[in-house]
């Protein structure tokens, strides 16, 4: 219901397989004409449906950038202030009870050798994303720059992606329309699932994600993983980093520089 006008956008995202495919989707007329009553009605229905729901949401149809985006998080720098979580909520209008980015806290070890550890979390923008595989409508898609985004105009809210995501990076907008002043946030579209998109609108404009920009300890570093001179690539090249739950084969784009060189925590 929100963003009704937003649904009529371009017919796909240029540069993604989905976008290219939807341009070719107008079906040719079948050769046999005698039986076409049923098939014709189906096609007519399909064409009507295409006009109605063919578009993509505005936030998703941004121009793709080359180079896979990645984030490095230095666990030795994080102090658990949750400024990233607050900045993210403010940036995207994330609803109460939902988080695109946050810091997990946990106590490790046994008395007296106990530590309180912080683990900044967000969507891992997996190269082999489990959420993308199970999404029935293509609402979850990967852009050419590796950012996994949710098209809130296409999501049906089945929540299979939430069940599939090992990082609990997704939340569900169960509340109805939050009101006109919040409606500009696609992250609030009711009945749909939402998650971190590496602040695609900011980063497409050459800025840093809100969580990176706000982090007082500079624990988060965002950049182009394909550019060997970018800060994020240089951190990766140190060999100190690893992703969370990499054993699941998800190929996360977020990697953690371990505590005191010990590698990322295994929770």
């Amino acid at each position: 219901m929100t963003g009704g006008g937003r649904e009529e956008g371009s017919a796909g995202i240029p540069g993604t397989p989905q976008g290219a495919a939807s341009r070719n989707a107008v079906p040719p007329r079948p050769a046999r004409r005698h039986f076409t009553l049923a098939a014709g009605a189906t096609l007519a229905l399909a064409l009507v449906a295409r006009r109605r729901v063919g578009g993509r949401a505005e936030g998703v149809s941004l121009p793709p950038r080359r180079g896979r985006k990645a984030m490095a998080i230095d666990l030795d720098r994080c102090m658990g202030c949750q400024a990233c979580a607050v900045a993210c909520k403010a940036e995207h209008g994330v609803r109460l009870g939902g988080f695109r980015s946050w810091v997990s806290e946990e106590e490790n070890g046994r008395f007296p050798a106990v530590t309180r550890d912080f683990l900044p979390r967000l969507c891992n923008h997996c190269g082999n994303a489990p959420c993308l595989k199970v999404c029935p409508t293509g609402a979850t898609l990967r852009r050419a720059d590796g950012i996994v985004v949710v098209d809130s105009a296409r999501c049906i809210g089945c929540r299979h992606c939430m069940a599939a995501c090992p990082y609990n990076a997704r939340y569900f907008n169960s509340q109805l329309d939050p009101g006109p002043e919040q409606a500009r946030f696609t992250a609030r579209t009711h009945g749909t699932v939402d998650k971190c998109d590496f602040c695609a609108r900011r980063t497409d404009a050459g800025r840093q994600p809100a969580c990176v920009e706000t982090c007082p300890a500079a624990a988060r570093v965002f950049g182009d993983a394909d550019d060997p001179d970018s800060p994020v690539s240089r951190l990766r090249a140190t060999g100190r980093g690893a992703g969370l739950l990499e054993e699941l084969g998800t190929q996360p784009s977020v990697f953690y520089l371990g505590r005191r060189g010990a590698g990322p925590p295994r929770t």
Partner: protein
Amino acid sequence: MESEASVDRTIESSILRPLREPGGTRPWRGRILALGTAIWMWSCARILSEGHGLLGTGSYGVSWGLTVANTIHLIGISHVGIAVSAVVRVLGLERFRNAARIAELLTLVSLLLAVANITLDVGRPDRFLVNTLVHGRWHAPMVWSATVISLYLVSSGVYLYLSMRRDLWVLSRTELPFRALYAALSLGYRDTEESRNRHDQALSWLALALIPVMVSVHSVYGLFFGLLSARPGWHNPLQAPYFVLGAVVSGFSALVVLLALLRREFAWRELLEERLFRVFAVFLAFVIFLYLYFTGSEHLTAQYAGPPAERALSGLVLGGSYAWAFWGTMTAGLLALIWLLRLARRPGPVKVGAIAAAAALVNGAMFAKRVLLLLPPQQHPALPTPLPPGLYVPTAVELAATFGTYLAGALAFLGILRFLPAIELPLAEPEDALAWTGTRDPWRRAVVPLTIAAGLVLVVWGVRGREADFAPLKWISGLLLLALVPLEWCLLGGQGKPGAVPDSSFVRQEAEG
């Protein structure tokens, strides 16, 4: 001959009792069910209009709750129609014939209610069907499920209709209030030998073709969970056959309860014989045993050699916070198994009521097992969540929407029973001896091959262009066209105009005697 005919007439009048005496002996039952259905519809309407905030589910912890468990349960029950029909048609076990139509009606009602439950569960019911059909991605289990459920729904409907077409024709010649409607619904049926053979043949092939469809429906629901590597407790290659087996258990137990209720309500003691229940009891005990075996195998593997997360989750189910529910369910299943075997082996008259009670116990235990499958993996994710998962407590609206489904189903069933014969009417001699020798009308002869061609073209078109938009719509409509082939084949053959000079393609034979 005469005595046979009079027996047939007695059977026929017994079958038609629910149609002749609308209201029955206890009209208050219908009213209670109507009230329950109204509450169900009201709670569904509230969820649809006020959003999923009304439910006890959330973003962290349980996001698939009771409505999903209910969907799985109803889909499971829906397997039974084609299972019984296949036994009758493919294996030729005629003694189950009288249970077949009741099973098929149960299939249709539960399948429709399952679809209602899925629709209720998704966050955007307004986009659900269109987006799945238009933008559906071939690699998503949800799209597989849309494909096989549409196919199953339509072909089960075709099966039910074809097996009932003659009965509709018989009803159109009675004094029943809706006889004009029955005549219209029978779509020009002519009761000739050839027509009966044609329907029998079509039904046998359809039953055979429907078995893999039925298996795939339940497998896909298993794959919804089995394919998620992120969730210990779900990620399991056993999941698809596990779900098929669970469907057999819940479907047959629901059917036994329903048969026992109908037998009592309409005094169908001769039509639904005692030995039928004896066989069902043994079969149900056998599949319960298989299900317990699967469960044991699952937990043995997890405990003995499972990955740490898998073992921890299995430990929670076996001896942690879910232990009481798990062991309660297992005990109920085991007790029902022993009880059913004792009832089946007991000499003397079969205690139908007790068998139905045991079956009801099994059905309830299966529902609990579905909930037990859903909750633990969601409440114990691999990594910490921003907010603690918390306890899942279904709200009153959620409970009404879940369990009200069964009241609505019962009401729908009562309504169907008032209108359609639940048991096949006995076959009299075909009185109309029109022999059909095939139509010469090229257009009519071409309909079936053209439908097959169109169906195949659509399926191939959709599958080849599976990355494109509209691909699921193409292959699903292709499959549905193929599902309509038996219907066309029966409708186009064996028609004629009574009393009129037959078309050149019909040759009137002299009726014997």
